[in-house]
């Protein structure tokens, strides 16, 4: 047996292993097609992401400037979602608002993910007094209801889109910390981690090779879930007037602006609200699918 041959023999299986994981993913994709709800969710998210990045794909109307004579028109072929009191096209405003909601949610999830998962990993893998201290901190974060905590942070940082997003992110730190900690502890107690120590692995090697990859999935599923939650929370802050300032077409703000016309122009509140709901529902559905895929 020549050296070259065996090297190849080993390289090939490695590629093979990679290809196998790829095919597994393809199989996962095929499973998605059998679930119409999930397909719809992915479609909704794809549309909204496109709207955020390239709003011109969906609408040529201006989201900020409107014509007064078009004011308060009901939904029609010309204005799919109708128009508001200053004659602005509501559909254009919703489309252009996507970037504010999605961007904000992304920032929020990033804050929660980085800080929360960091805390959880530290607490779970080091344990002892540090674990105790960090978890009491998390308890405190949990003891204050999310919206109240976000408002406290906003009062500190000031109003605005980014600050609202950071505030929402801070409210999700606790849950990220809890989930990642319990995942790390679950994996740490697993037989295969004991087997790895038994075969001479150092703590760092076990952490990188076994604990992290196996605890990541639950965190990813949580991130998808928190993405939906963050969109809801950011729109609530926007509605209360602590998020983006007018005339930004942020979704919560859009609904707040429609408040005055609840009696006469139903579309101003109803339609943006339905969009928010569809996006949040889709994110939740996706999260559910991820955690189910993981549980296999």
């Amino acid at each position, binding site marked *: 047996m020549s050296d070259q041959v065996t*090297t190849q023999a*080993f390289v090939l299986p490695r590629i093979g292993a990679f290809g196998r994981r790829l095919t597994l993913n393809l199989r996962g994709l095929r499973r998605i097609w059998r679930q119409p709800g999930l397909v719809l969710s992915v479609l909704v998210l794809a549309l909204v992401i496109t709207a955020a990045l390239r709003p011109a794909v969906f609408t040529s109307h201006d989201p900020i400037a409107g014509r007064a004579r078009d004011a308060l028109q009901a939904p029609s072929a010309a204005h799919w979602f109708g128009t508001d009191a200053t004659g602005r096209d509501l559909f254009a405003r919703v489309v252009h608002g996507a970037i504010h909601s999605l961007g904000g949610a992304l920032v929020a999830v990033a804050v929660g993910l980085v800080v929360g998962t960091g805390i959880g990993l530290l607490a779970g893998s080091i344990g002892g007094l540090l674990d105790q201290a960090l978890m009491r901190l998390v308890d405190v974060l949990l003891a204050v209801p999310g919206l109240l905590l976000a408002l406290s942070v906003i009062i500190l940082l000031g109003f605005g889109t980014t600050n609202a997003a950071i505030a929402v992110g801070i409210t999700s730190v606790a849950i990220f910390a809890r989930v990642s900690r319990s995942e790390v502890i679950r994996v740490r107690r*697993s037989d295969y981690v004991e087997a790895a120590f038994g075969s*001479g692995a150092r703590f760092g090697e076990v952490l990188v090779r076994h604990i992290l990859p196996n605890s990541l999935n639950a965190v990813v599923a949580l991130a998808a879930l928190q993405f939906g939650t963050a969109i809801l929370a950011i729109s609530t802050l926007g509605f209360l007037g602590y998020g983006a300032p007018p005339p930004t077409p942020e979704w919560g703000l859009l609904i707040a602006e429609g408040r005055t016309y609840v009696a006469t122009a139903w579309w101003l509140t109803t339609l943006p609200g339905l969009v928010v709901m569809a996006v949040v529902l889709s994110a939740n559905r996706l999260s559910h699918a991820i955690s189910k895929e993981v549980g296999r």
Partner: protein
Amino acid sequence: MTALTQAAPDTVSDDSQPLLEVEGLTLSYDTRQGRVEVVHDVSFRVGRGEVVALVGESGSGKTSTAQAVIDLLADNGRRDSGRVVLAGSELTGLSDRAMRQVRGRRIGLVPQDPNNSLNPVKTIGDSLAEVLKIHGWGSKPAIAQRVLDLLEKVGIDRPELRVTQYPHELSGGMKQRVLIASAIALDPELIIADEPTSALDVTVQRRILDLIDALRAETGASVLLVTHDLGVAKERADRIVVMRGGQIVEQGPTAHVVEHAENPYTRTLLHEAAAVAWATPAPPPADLAERDVAIEVTDLVQDFDQGRGREPFRAVDHVSLAVAKGSTHAIVGESGSGKTSTVRAILGFQRPTSGVVRVAGHEVTSLRPRQLRDLRRSAQLVLQNPYSSLDPRQAVGDIVAEPLVNFRLGNRAERSRQVAAYLDKVALPATIAQRLPRELSGGQRQRVAIARALIIHPEVVVLDEPVSALDVTVQAQILRLLDDLQRDLGLTYLFISHDLGVVGQISDTVSVMQSGRVVEHGTTHEVFSDPQTDYTRELLAAIPGR
């Protein structure tokens, strides 16, 4: 043996109509891969007062068949065709309401794992009374009295106390007795016992089977005994039905099946069962006493803290043992005997309270974490459950190579050659290196775990119940593999097991543990042929078919 051997099923005449007839039963499950047929065209009969054993390994369809008899397949299960007839009246096609009158009243079920088969938030009394209440049996005080009588009947002490207790306060064996009481509460004509002892300790297993036998004799009920263990079936059943892959491969009166098995699979099963039952361990190699000692444990004590104000729990109580190089020593004991704590101390996973452990020249008890890694080069561990001991996200090749990576041995090419060589040693194809653990069978996984343990040439391998999660035929293969490897590589084994039958096949010397102490030790030959303690005798008697 209480078996009344009856005529072969073909000759059952009309006047002795069988109690249960299953005809052409075909079952399937709805899975992600589509509809999967798990039971195909299964037909068998259970006569009145008869014990029929449904024998098969995991995936044989035996449990699904039993579930289909009482129409309690899982939600995704379906009966595609076939009939179930109880005492002449057809059960299949009955309405749910009519079927409920059959369940519990005419057919009782003794489930597989007593530990999660009782409602955890109901008292024992309420759980037992439930079947009586469902079928409107008697008044409240009558039910209360009946519950106490039933508990007494199944041999539970202090019934008045037990009815107020919750399942988690009872041992597994007691829970199974409660479940048996529930199954016989309404004097059913048929008792389905679905692996009734597989979750219990060996000595308890025997008592539970005796209890079922006695109750059957008393009430005249028939028993459909579902089991993976042909030894148990041989001992307890009048007739045996052997299933494999969803089909019946052989059935007939027990004596006939045992002596004139036609099917090669049945013969393999019989062979393995006999090997377990009648293993007469050979005397150990003569030079055993002169060999160097590979593992030496002196006065090992392991206490576990139970919180402030409570006596620490002593899991290991002054255990000493010595294992000669190249030999196999077995530690035998039931759950809670301290065998696992002993192993963890020996391998340095847990610092013992006191005592000295020497493994392959290392004094484990005084090692610092860094030095512990050196110990791992010479002492390796194979865990009980191959389904949890392999990282689900790693390919087999990476799993087997991990010890080499940990100790920085060889380059990538060198390691790949080693992986291929060791996969070959454990009789796995080289192509398996790219697979993920979940694509492998239990036996294959355990081979992978063994390859991982051997790849860095350890002197000592500790095997913690390495075959107890596997099917009987696979168990035998793994034991033979271990034997071959020991001879080839000169390994020293420390073999942990609850099953003396398995131990008899592999070990040279043995320590029997009970409640943290070694109650008996010696060569396996001596211990098997001349046991010194009642406990060892009980363990020996618990080997089915012996």
